[in-house]
């Protein structure tokens, strides 16, 4: 019933993108997003689109899965496009009620949408090729310089890790509880809305109890193993930069430099 929810976004694999250090991926993604917003001439869009396409092929994640991540954006895209189409002044090609549709609006709308799509695809590529645990490790590593000004980098990362760790567990638990109540004749699919809402109680109460029990157990287990925050804590899986990472850093820097140079010319 809930089994069709994929666990997180991560798509296990061993492609070049999967092997890239997660810190590199986050930084490169950040740089590319900045580039997307800074450079907005058609040629720049072409470069970014080709780059995204190359990454999509490199990731070996099935195209359908990747494009599936665009689904929630569909309405926003349509809406954005329409607003730009109707509200950009310029050479009018049609008139609709009080709106004038312009060629400039058409182009503008298209590029804005392209920008959103590229943004989402690039971010999805990060989450598709990086396991949540690696992602939080990388976040902690990248945030740790900010510890000096009081950002609790370790605690933030630990909270994220724990939350992510328990998502599949809770989905599984919900599935189990739903099945158990169904076995006692509960019906979650038919009946009036009031009845269906009432039927949520037999799921939520056990679920909450289970969440608190798990949180309690986890806190106890962590304490029993002398967990006391991030100070002096080492990691089992150390992050290491590989030659591949330096290549990615270099490539990104070069790309940004070229785009910037073209912009200034």
């Amino acid at each position, binding site marked *: 019933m809930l*089994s*069709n929810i*994929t*666990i997180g976004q991560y*798509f*296990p*694999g061993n492609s070049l993108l999967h092997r890239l250090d997660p810190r590199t991926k986050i930084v490169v993604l950040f740089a590319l997003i900045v580039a997307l917003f800074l450079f907005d001439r058609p040629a720049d869009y072409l470069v970014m689109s080709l780059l995204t396409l190359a990454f999509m092929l490199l990731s070996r994640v099935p195209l359908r899965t990747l494009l599936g991540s665009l689904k929630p954006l569909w309405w926003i895209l349509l809406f954005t496009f329409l607003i730009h189409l109707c509200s950009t002044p310029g050479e009018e090609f049609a008139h609709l009620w009080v709106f004038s549709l312009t060629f400039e609006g058409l182009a503008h709308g298209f590029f804005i949408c392209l920008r959103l799509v590229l943004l989402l695809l690039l971010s999805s590529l990060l989450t598709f090729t990086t396991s949540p645990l690696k992602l939080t490790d990388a976040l902690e590593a990248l945030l740790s310089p900010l510890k000096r000004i009081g950002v609790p980098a370790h605690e933030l990362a630990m909270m994220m890790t724990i939350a992510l760790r328990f998502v599949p567990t809770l989905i599984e638990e919900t599935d*189990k*509880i739903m*099945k*158990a*109540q*169904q*076995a*006692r*004749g*509960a*019906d979650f699919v038919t009946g009036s809305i009031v009845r269906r809402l009432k039927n949520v*109680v*037999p799921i939520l*109460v*056990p679920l909450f*109890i*289970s969440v608190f029990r798990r949180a309690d157990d986890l806190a106890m287990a962590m304490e029993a193993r002398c967990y006391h925050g991030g100070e002096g804590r080492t990691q089992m899986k150390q992050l290491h930069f590989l030659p591949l990472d330096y290549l990615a850093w270099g490539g990104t820097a070069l790309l940004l430099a070229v785009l910037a140079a073209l912009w200034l010319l």
Partner: protein
Amino acid sequence: MAIELQDVSFTYLPGTPYERQALRGINLKIQEGSITALAGHTGSGKSTLLQHIGGLLHPDRGQVCIDGADLAAHTKQEKRAALAACRKVGLVFQYAEHQLFEESIYEDIAFGPRNFGLAETDVEARVREAMARVHLDYDAYRDRSPFQLSGGQMRRVALAGVLALHPAYLVLDEPTAGLDPRGRRELLQMIRELHAAEGTTIVFVSHNMEDVFAIADEVVVLRQGMILLQGAPADVFAQGEQIAAAGLRQPELMRLLSALRAAGVPLSAEETAVRTPAEAAQAIVCALKEKGGRTHAQ
């Protein structure tokens, strides 16, 4: 009338990297009135099989029939028959006490019967009876919160919640997991009493071979989603190598008796009828007496 599985296969999360085939071509017939135990290593597909019997999962291939009615329905008429067939099966999940949610024990047990559309007077009778079956005093416990009970008592309330549905087939997933020895013994006793009193067909999953040996009259051993062994407990457990291959152990009781026999204690062939420690003790005493008598006579 029976539970019949024909060539049942099932795969979790097909078409994803997490795809996992849990059942492979299971053929199984569970006779009415029997006590059948499903044994197997963790991940061998026992729980998945039980959920198929309860109609909560439907096979990718093959079919599951309860008293001749296919649980996977397509047409409207079939759906009604399937629902009726499903309702004959009472499914008790592993750690069933984790599904309690009501404020009082009475309300929790009444949840199922009310869902089945019973009138309130019938519901009360059902709750009363179910609580008696699990040895909980009706007047003392009906208004207490289920969350104030001990683990074993909570498990019994959850069991009562299913028994109140009057299932013809009671299907339990690891009913004794996590209970102390006493809770375990009591629960097995309740299952046996129910079987004796109502003739309810029992299917249960267990990791504990003593439990299986004590109450089952048919054992099905699963391995990697397939049936490895099937038959009477004494016959199945006699196949030591296969049992070990399935990641299981022979029951301690059986190993004790074999060891004694190897050491020269003249245990009679009736030992196959020995199921519980008490019966075993008696058989051993008899055998030793006999042996003692013989040595005296010489």
